[in-house]
């Protein structure tokens, strides 16, 4: 899809809804986790589906006003007041899920910028966020490869496709 012309994008900080398709690897110490990600984000609602290479669902995370829910492939359901509590309780991982939508769009206070003036590295809530690649050379381009690390947790996210409604 590199051939597609780069679409103009709204201002990063103004992006409050998106659909994205990508691939995520989470590493805590030697514990790996690897899945395809499809994420529908809106201010009031989130839906993340994690799937394996053959497309089978591994887990579905949803969040809305009532709280956060995780449904696993084995049909186990976990509920929590919000995402951060859910990830901590179920996966034993402190994941910046509440802040992630803003970080993904690049709405961060950048410590350094690349030569197209887009965020290259940021620090937030103890996480180091590195924007390794963007979808195009436009100044308003959205990230396509990111790394986030804190203590012994490392997240690497390849975003194959953005859709901004």
């Amino acid at each position: 899809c590199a051939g597609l012309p780069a679409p103009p994008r709204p201002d990063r900080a103004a992006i409050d809804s998106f659909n994205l398709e990508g691939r995520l690897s989470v590493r805590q110490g030697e514990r790996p986790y690897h899945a395809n990600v499809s994420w529908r984000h809106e201010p009031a609602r989130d839906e993340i589906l994690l799937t394996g290479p053959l497309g089978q669902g591994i887990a579905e995370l949803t969040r809305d006003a009532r709280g956060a829910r995780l449904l696993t492939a084995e049909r186990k359901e976990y509920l929590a007041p919000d995402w951060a509590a859910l990830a901590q309780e179920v996966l034993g991982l402190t994941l910046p899920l509440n802040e992630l939508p803003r970080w993904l769009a690049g709405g961060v206070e950048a410590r350094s910028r690349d030569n197209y003036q887009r965020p290259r590295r940021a620090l937030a809530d103890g996480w180091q966020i590195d924007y390794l690649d963007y979808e195009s050379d436009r100044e308003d381009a959205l990230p396509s490869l990111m790394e986030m690390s804190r203590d012994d947790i490392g997240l690497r996210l390849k975003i194959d496709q953005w859709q901004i409604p």
Partner: protein
Amino acid sequence: SGLDQLHAFLGETRAAKGSFSQTVVGKSGRKARQSSGSFLMQRPGKFRWSYDKPYVQLLVSDGERLWSFDPDLNQVVVKKVGQALGSSPAALLAGETLERNFDLKEGGTAGGLEFVEATPRAQDASFQKVRIGLRDKLPMTMEIQDNFGQTTTLHFSRFEPNPSFSSGLFRFTPPKGADVVGE
């Protein structure tokens, strides 16, 4: 019948290679995702499943370990196969005794194919059902229904039974600089 063809395939085809196209259709308005690639397999449990479109992902198993490599993430995850392969769709192609892990029943005929429906016996299997379409004792299609209302459809082409190839293909040596994680 479908079951006869499947048993013939399991008995007579010790190894196979071919290409596949894959379509994943999700529930409620999720866009269908297309991908394609090629595969090799050798009983018992060895397979090499490589996607090359829309991006490269490689799954290799020697029957004991499963390597999954994603060049964009530059990461190799290594896992013990154990029970995981037992009830995965790959097991249907590369496995030996299906009855142990699946309930098998006839799935009718359509489009020149005879079908078998395989339901994993394990309660915690990651999918509900697989429907395999066979012709000339070889699988042509595989439809996998997962537990989230998604259906993956695989179409096989250039399916070559019992080709000769080196079994070294079922081990994976991570490229230099790749992040290798797992046991």
